């Protein structure tokens, strides 16, 4: 059975709320031992996931609901994120990043998520909307730099 998330928040589909979520990911990432570059990329990936929901799922409406759940994971050490919404569904097979040789604005979000996270999986929720599950593990270097008595975490 999956344990309860360490953190669960619900936000409206309001772009101005994303800075707060980024800050949260930064803080939790710091506590887990992620280096600055990875914290930055992880915040960016979460931000992109939320931006995509707001822009494409809710058509930039600001009253949609988005749930963000975060687990601290021990083995392998890292973070697991689940983001759920009640927005328009899309076939997960059609969620693809664009080819980066094509230099144009837009379409970078999925690429950023897939490049940054160790896992990223989209699915359609039974109750409507989408669920995105992502995980990010510490690199070998980050693990080695952790203090030996780093505090315990859950293991979903």
């Amino acid at each position, binding site marked *: 059975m999956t344990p309860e998330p360490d953190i669960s928040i619900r936000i409206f589909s309001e772009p101005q709320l994303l800075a707060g979520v980024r800050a949260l990911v930064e803080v939790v990432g710091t506590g887990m031992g992620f280096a600055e570059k990875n914290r930055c*990329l992880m915040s960016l990936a979460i931000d992109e996931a939320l931006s995509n929901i707001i822009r494409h799922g809710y058509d930039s409406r600001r009253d949609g609901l988005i749930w963000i759940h975060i687990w601290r994971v021990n083995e392998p050490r890292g973070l697991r994120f689940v983001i759920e919404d009640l927005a328009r569904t899309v076939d997960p097979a059609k969620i693809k990043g664009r080819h980066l040789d094509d230099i144009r604005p837009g379409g970078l979000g999925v690429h950023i998520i897939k490049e940054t996270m160790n896992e990223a999986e989209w699915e359609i929720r039974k109750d409507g909307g989408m669920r995105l599950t992502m995980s990010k593990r510490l690199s070998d270097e980050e693990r080695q730099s952790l203090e030996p008595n780093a505090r315990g975490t859950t293991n979903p």
Partner: protein
Amino acid sequence: MNKDLVVERRSEGAAVVLTPQSDIDMARAPAMRTAVAAVIRDRPPTLVLDLSKVIYVDSSGIATLVEALQISLKNNVRLVLVGINPRVQSAFEITKLVGMFNISDSVAKAAG
């Protein structure tokens, strides 16, 4: 809570320097886009985007910079980025856009 992005505009010789005063994200990218378009309409020889006060840029911000590059090229305006911090650099690297932009280490050099 975010506010609209303030973008300072000044001249440095013949160049125009735009300095966004905070992050360029989904909420703030439209203001950046508007500021860039206003400068390009004047067709200065060089547009310098001083990003020294930008700690974070998301894909909306990156898209805005790519748009700026495209309309600069179309209007024969040289676009130069300055003051890119490591976090913004990471976003450029992951989107493989580092080599696309003319990047300088100072506004004076960029404007010269």
